[in-house]
């Protein structure tokens, strides 16, 4: 894919967000929202792929679903945080698991924030901006009633 990633980032100037999710609709909605908000989403469909992409591109943020095939989100987060190349990258656990112990488990694995799906796009963006502000949003956030 991107072989010259080291030079790509400074050129484009958009923060790279690694979106890890195996549910196609969820990936679709988040990538559209991120793109709309001025981020560059990179998608991984499972934990192993997420590790490969994170090590290869070192994103500015990772949105990590937890229930994943092959290697789950908690284990992937643990490995990312354990690797010095990606240890500094903030990870927001984004999951349909709503129980408290899930959140605690995620924090224990090294996640920096925990957002329950389904979530309000505004709320998710507020959380993302806490870690990585967008460089230039393509369009301003529409105001709601």
């Amino acid at each position, binding site marked *: 894919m991107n072989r010259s990633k080291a030079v790509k980032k400074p050129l484009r100037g958009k923060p790279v967000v690694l979106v890890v999710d195996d*549910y196609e*609709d*969820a990936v679709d*909605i*988040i990538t*559209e*929202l991120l793109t*709309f908000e001025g981020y560059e989403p990179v998608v991984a469909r499972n934990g192993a792929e997420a590790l490969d992409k994170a090590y290869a591109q070192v994103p500015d943020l990772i949105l990590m679903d937890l*229930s994943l095939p092959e290697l789950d989100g908690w284990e992937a987060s643990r490995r990312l945080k354990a690797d010095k190349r990606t240890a500094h990258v903030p990870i927001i656990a984004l*999951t*349909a*698991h*709503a*129980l*408290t112990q899930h959140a605690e488990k995620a924090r224990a694995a090294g996640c920096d924030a925990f957002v*329950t*799906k*389904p*979530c*309000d*796009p505004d709320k998710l963006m507020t959380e993302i901006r806490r870690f990585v502000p967008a460089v230039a949003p393509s*369009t301003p*956030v*529409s105001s*709601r009633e």
Partner: protein
Amino acid sequence: MITLHSSLLRRTPPRPAEAPSRERPAVLTAERKLAYADALLRCSDPEACAHVALGLLQNLGVRAAVCTLLQPEDGELRAVAGLGVAPALWEDLHISVQETSHPLVVALGGTEPVLVNREQVMRLPGPPPPFPAFHAVPLIRAEAEGGPGLGLVLIQHTAASELGEELLWVCGMLSAKLVGLDYRRLLAAEKRYKRERAHFHSIIDAVTDPILLTDMEGRIIIANSRAESLFSAPEGTSEGRRRAVALNNMLFSAALFTTMEDADARRRELLLVDPSEGRDLLFELLSTPFVDPHGGGGVVSVLRNITDLRSATAELEENYRRLRVAEAEMRAERDRLDLIISSVADPILVTDPGGSIVLMNPPAQRLFEVEGEQRGEEATRRVRANDAVFSSFMSNLYTGHMMRWRGELGLVDPHTGTTIPVEAIAGKVLTKGGEVTAIVTILHDRTEALEKARLYDQVKRHSEELKQRVNEATAELAAQNELLRRQAMALEQASEMKSQFLATMSHELRTPLNAIIGYTQLLLQGISGEVPPPQHKKLTRIASNAQHLLSLINDLLDITRIESGKMPIHVETFELRALIKDVMAEVEPIIARTQLTVTQELPEELPELRSDRQKVKQVVLNLLSNALKFTPAGSVQVQVRHDVERDTVSISVKDTGIGIPEAEQQRIFEDFRQADNSYTRQYGGTGLGLSICRRLAAMLGGHISLESQVGVGSTFTLHLPRQLRRK
């Protein structure tokens, strides 16, 4: 007893007299006088002398005369010879000298002849004298001697007769001759007396016991040699011996005196001293008084030495006493043994080597004897049967060499016929020589023991049954426990599975819901391009329903977590004021959409709360959301109070809303309840809010109360302890 006539001893011997001749001369010549005197002298007794004298008087011319002599034995004047008078007329003549007034007695006392005339003779008492009148010539002793005469010669008085010289001479000759005879007699008597006396003394001296004769004054008249050794001290004896004799005399006199006083004390003990050896001698004193027929009297005492007898008697008595004691002890021992045997409840029998019963105690008698009214054919038969059983048992012991024998016998109560199982133990009683003298058998009634054994078996069997049952029950219980444990495990697994299921369900429901909400938002926010207004309105409805669905899922998840105890409590200390502020901030967008006046009333001093902040906030938020939702117009007030005394905090949310009918006030806290189900659609919400609030309040140690009136409004109050104490 010897009496001495001392007066006789004083007599002087008589003078020799001439013996008269038997012829009768008118005048006595000297030759004749000599012849008579010679005749008299030849006479050897007084009566013969009297006959000679009367013959002499006849020669001198006396026709009738009687000679009376005083009998020394009985003091009577008695006729011994007669002259010229038939013997029948004089033989009975006798006069007692006691009749002192009798003329003849008077004449006897005189010395001169007395004439007793016819008148005097007529008055005489007793048998009449053989003559109408007579001369009584006393036969006198020597002038110097005096005393009564020896007799009287009674000579018939005639007118012509006169007492001539010769008659008186004859009488004098007779007197002399009688005196001489008397003297000889006395000499012989004295000789005899001396012999007898010597004989007597040798006899009484031969007696080893002291014998004494005392007069009425206690003076010793006669004592044998043994008595003399005690009571008299010859010349030249020692002072000690003399004193001992004096003491003995004194003691004897005193004893004798009491003997005289008291007839019962004639046999008594007397303690004297042996004068030669000085040791004490005990005598038995036998005293017998006597009366001397010649006047006076005295006491004859015989002392019998009982010193040795006494000690022998004492020894004998001691032996006897010991024997008595031994006998008493033996008797007591036997009585005690009898008592013991009698009081033993078990029958005891003692049999001799021959096999016959010699002793039984009452319980044994009950088995082997039939008495009185109980005797009956039946009872007798039973006793006989018992005897046979017992004999058979005993025969073992007779034949064998063993000392003891034990056996089980079946006896029968003779009175009731009840069978008595008996244990018999027999033992031989041996003499020192090893011979069997008796066999003692003790029977022990085993009825009770057997009954006890039977009962024990029964109890044991029951106990075992019980034990068996308990074991079964225990096993059953254990099985049930195991079952319960498995069930509990299954339940736990089921519960775990349920939780897992719910978590999974929640996740799986959220995932597509997430897509719905996400796409709807992308469209509504124009991220995916402009949406025409009619479509935009429909997208809004989709978003609203999607949110409602999400709330339902969240509430269900909450209730499930609370119910399964999987809702953790995080206790922390926080400011209630800040919490209220957060809640108000969250509902700010909702308030902004209404016309309601929302106010707060918090006390100045509000302590920090120690509880689960997130849950308190959830409840307050829920109550406030409800109030805003169900109040079309008016106001909503949030009020906080602190009860210092109880250390509780209350947070009230008061509205002026539609109110809740009283009938619904309890039910609204139940799951999926709203006062009117139609409200759910009208006002939104899942109907699980208050139910969750109620559960959360309880988890925090508090509760929620409600005051409401339809059309006026409602007040929901959360009561909490200021400090939650974790269990």
